[in-house]
């Protein structure tokens, strides 16, 4: 046991003395969370809209004010003619232009209908969809107010939409689980595979194998520090997302931490497997990044929903462990469900772990012969 502890201590020294390792361990997770949380936010806030008001009456003024006071939009330029529309959209600052037709107010009162156009910048499809949806909703709301005041006789079916689990549709709800999932596979699989292949490359592995340390102790000793530090990472990410974004954990914290441990363990065994297959550090990095991280980002359901993928990608996704962990963590954190709802995914992660460990042991034995 003493031999083992001395060995673990050495591994910690390697980690703490290497600036790059420290950055990957603690810098990247923090930056990722803040980046995804703030920058890649899908919420609409203070988007600039320009107005081309060909009518200029009280009605159009009211609508414009309502749009600008919603908190989603900010008043941009007031345009004078339709030639300017193209110019301001090209300028990139204006996300949409609202055009009221001539005699808007008069037509609305006398004929009961008037036209308003929303022109959005289609070069950013997501933003354009979001903007037009919000603008349409605000104008529809204005319609209802108007109809309510004039006590309209027409009965309207008014859908009232509510978002369960994430009422304000905060983007962070989606990104935090994804970032935890990716960061863990990055740290565990990539870093452990690098640290083990480094010993092989530098020739120190040979000396360790000749020593009284057992192969299992060597592997455990190399992996244990990463297990502990990854766990610290999970806690750091959860705290960050709670303090900075107010993201709550609706389900059991204990269950969440236990599942995280399982996932970390799974990623570590993947890292060990990679290290038994890779001849040097470059190969290990290549396998971990290209073979693991990229598919995990694209196919795990982190950014693109699995349901919308062509079938073949869905199958590929089925053999990617991150996919299951994302489901688990979303369920626990956001929906607040218990173990009964995630036992299948948990079981799948356990099977992955066993398969990885089994394959590593087989590889290791072959190499030792």
């Amino acid at each position, binding site marked *: 046991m003493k031999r083992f502890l001395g060995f673990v201590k050495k591994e910690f*020294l*390697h980690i703490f003395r290497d600036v790059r390792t420290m950055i990957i361990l603690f810098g990247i997770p923090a930056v990722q969370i803040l980046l995804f949380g703030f920058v890649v936010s899908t919420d609409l806030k203070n988007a600039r809209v320009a107005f081309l008001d060909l009518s200029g009456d009280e009605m159009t003024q009211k609508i414009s004010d309502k749009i600008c006071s919603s908190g989603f939009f900010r008043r941009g330029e007031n345009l004078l003619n339709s030639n300017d529309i193209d110019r301001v959209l090209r300028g990139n600052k204006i996300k949409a232009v609202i055009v009221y037709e001539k005699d808007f107010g008069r037509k609305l009162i006398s004929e009961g209908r008037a036209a308003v156009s929303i022109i959005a910048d289609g070069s950013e499809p997501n933003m354009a969809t979001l903007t037009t949806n919000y603008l349409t909703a605000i104008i529809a709301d204005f319609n209802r107010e108007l109809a309510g005041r004039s006590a309209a006789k027409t009965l309207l079916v008014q859908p009232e939409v509510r978002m369960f689990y994430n009422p304000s549709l905060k983007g962070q709800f989606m990104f935090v689980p994804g970032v935890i999932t990716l960061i863990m596979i990055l740290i565990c699989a990539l870093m452990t595979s690098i640290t083990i292949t480094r010993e092989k490359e*530098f*020739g120190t592995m040979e*000396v360790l194998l000749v020593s009284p*340390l057992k192969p299992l102790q060597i592997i455990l000793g190399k992996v244990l520090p990463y297990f502990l530090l990854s766990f610290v990472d999970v806690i750091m990410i959860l705290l960050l997302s709670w303090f900075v974004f107010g993201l709550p954990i609706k389900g059991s914290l204990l269950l969440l931490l236990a599942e995280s441990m399982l996932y970390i363990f799974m990623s570590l065994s993947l890292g060990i497997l990679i290290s038994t297959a890779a001849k040097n550090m470059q190969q290990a990095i290549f396998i971990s990044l290209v073979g693991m991280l990229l598919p995990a980002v694209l196919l795990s359901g982190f950014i693109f929903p699995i349901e919308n993928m062509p079938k073949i990608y869905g199958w590929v996704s089925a053999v990617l462990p991150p996919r299951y962990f994302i489901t688990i963590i979303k369920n626990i954190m956001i929906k607040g469900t218990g173990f009964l709802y995630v036992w299948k995914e948990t079981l799948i992660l356990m099977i992955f772990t066993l398969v990885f460990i089994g394959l590593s042991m087989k590889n290791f034995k072959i190499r030792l012969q």
Partner: protein
Amino acid sequence: MTNNTVISVRNLVKKFGSFTANDNLDFEVYQGEIFGFLGANGAGKTTALRILSGLSEPTLGEITVAGYDARKQPEQIKKNIGYMCQKFSLYGDLTVKENIMLYGGIYGMKKKLIRERTGSLLKRLRFEEYGDRLIADLPLGLKQKLAFLVAVLHEPKIVFLDEPTGGVDPVTRRQFWEMIYETAAGGITVFVTTHYMDEAEYCDRVSIMSEGKIVALDTPAELKKQYQVKTVEEVFIKIARPGKKPG
């Protein structure tokens, strides 16, 4: 030299599939002796070394190292040997003292004992003030000497050196061999593979391997007499040249 056998190899055969890496090796190594293990690349030296150090299992044969059976008690063997390989084996990002502490700990030594020996080890290298330097900042020759002293820190019965002086300048090689002599004089058996034939002259006995077999084994002087040449290098060229049947 006493005649206590510390390594005894009888009919050692190691096969990888249909390839025979070690073909019926038969030899003994005595306590306190410097035993040179020579052979061209691919002659089977490394394979034999791995078997003797408990890393790999023999296909056939009876091998005893430091009194333990290589097949049944590799763990016991590992505790009683030291090992230093061709590639440099200390950690560059740890200090001299941390490296010593690590390897001492791995071999189950008490902290107090490690500290005592660290002191005398650094003194031996005239290196007392550099104990807290990172290994990466030291010159190669010094690192090699340090690696050797770390390999014998736990006072093993046998120390295996796999081409320990590769890439080191002649002066350092000389100093390195002086350390090997001192170690052997202290009773530790030195089992060394090398490519440098002048180093072979320093050994008490040398064995020369070719194509998986030991083709010569004796003291350097006896070998030279037998083959009627002036240096071990000439002996080596005469019998170990690849493709040529051993004479």
